[in-house]
């Protein structure tokens, strides 16, 4: 049995448990022990450990890495550290990233939200992860760090399959880079009750006044995905009919078609939480409603501005 320490932290841990104190230590440890399982809030990892589903050779505890825990402005973008919890997304970013705050407040329970992190949500890469549709809709990028350097992975290239992401074995998720909401954002999720449900399906929308729209669908395919046809359709309608400028009510037919196109983008399967047909139907309703709410707030903003 060999004993290794995270570089630069003298005598701290046995090979099985690494507690780096800085990002550089964490990245060095991940490079050296690529099968070490990162643990942040632990709300996914501990379930697997408690039930013996996973016996990782090593655990890499990220909670001591200060660089991962904050968020700040980074030029025109916001840089949200992977270790930021749902509770903080709700409390601190509701103004700048309302879609993310809305998604955060639907996650699990208060106990889960106090611990669970945005980086852990991405790391688990579940098709049902609630941050994912919002990050897709907002055109976010995931920052992956390693001793080789940092790279940005667009959110729509991050998810490769159920619980599989584009992250390399020596990489850690260090942050999410996302523009502050340029206009109204919405997140809607269908579940059997408010808290403690994994979404049956979910939908996120961002309006970029004068510039376009973004979408994200959760729990309705092997990965979270964008509804590109719905985005293109709506962007063309809004621009073509001068609706961005007029802020007129949205024609019902446009909202309905948007919902249909969003549902058509999904690739749902039947499972215990709902049938594929039900998910598709639910998604068309969610998308239509999300658009209604977002358009209403866009119209109200126009009112406020004069």
């Amino acid at each position, binding site marked *: 049995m060999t004993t290794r320490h995270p570089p630069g932290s003298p005598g701290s841990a046995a090979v099985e448990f690494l507690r780096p104190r800085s990002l550089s230590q964490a990245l060095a440890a991940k490079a050296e022990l690529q099968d070490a399982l990162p643990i942040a809030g*632990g709300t996914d990892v*501990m379930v697997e*450990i408690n039930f013996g589903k996973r016996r990782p050779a090593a*655990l890499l505890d990220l909670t001591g890495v200060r660089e991962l825990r904050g968020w700040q402005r980074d030029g025109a973008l916001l840089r949200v550290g992977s270790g930021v919890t749902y509770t903080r997304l*709700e409390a601190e970013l*509701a103004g700048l990233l309302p879609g993310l705050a809305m998604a955060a*407040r639907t996650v699990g329970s*208060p106990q889960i939200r106090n611990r669970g992190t945005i980086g852990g949500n991405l790391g688990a890469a579940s098709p049902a992860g609630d941050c994912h549709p919002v990050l897709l809709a907002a055109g976010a990028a995931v920052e992956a760090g390693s001793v080789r350097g940092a790279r940005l992975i667009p959110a729509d290239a991050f998810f490769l399959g159920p619980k599989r992401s584009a992250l390399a074995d020596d990489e850690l998720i260090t942050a999410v880079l996302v523009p502050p909401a340029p206009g109204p954002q919405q997140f809607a999720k269908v579940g059997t009750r*408010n*808290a403690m449900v994994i979404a049956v399906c979910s939908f996120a929308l961002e309006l970029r006044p004068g510039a376009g729209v973004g979408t994200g669908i959760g729990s309705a395919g092997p990965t979270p995905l964008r509804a590109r046809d719905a985005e293109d359709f709506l962007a063309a309608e809004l621009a073509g009919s001068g609706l961005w400028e007029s802020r007129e009510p949205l024609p019902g037919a446009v909202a309905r078609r948007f919902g249909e196109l969003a549902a058509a983008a999904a690739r749902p399967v039947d499972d215990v939480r709902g049938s594929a047909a039900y998910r598709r139907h639910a998604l068309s309703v969610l998308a239509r409603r999300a658009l209604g709410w977002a358009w209403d707030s866009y119209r109200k903003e126009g009112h406020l501005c004069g």
Partner: protein
Amino acid sequence: MTAPEAGDQVHTATVTLTVNGESRALEVDTRTSLLDLLREHLGLTGSKKGCDHGQCGACTVLIGGRRANACLALAVAHDGAEVTTVEGLADGDALHPLQDAFIRYDAFQCGYCTPGQLCSAAGMLTEGGPSAVTADLTGDPALTPGEIRERMSGNLCRCGAYVNIVRAVTAVSTAGTEP
């Protein structure tokens, strides 16, 4: 943290925590949950293991004053943490106002979920912030029964004592005696 013995399959590490105000240093298997540390190593059996995967809330404790499921907390990742369990809520023989209110309002039947409910309520009263039942994302809304129910939604009660739990929490929050 200690190095494992050569050839030893169980890998242990030392963790030092403050539990209910008392500093405790322990050597535990690196995969031990905080819940098992509390119950099996410290004999603090107030926190219950209802599900061991974050769904029932019977294991709720306060870590640094905030609610957490002890079953989902890796013990060795909590070196230096301050943990409060139900055993630490009372001040000597003087019950915590929530404990007193739970008795007065009949807020339990079998009592299995009660330690978690009490810790959760204690955390809730200080954590604040709007929940999913309030439309405004940025305000700090009043503790209506709906708001209390949502903020206590991480704690299940098989006996269905919810109505009286909400009454007890309401009584304490309106008395301004939150911790």
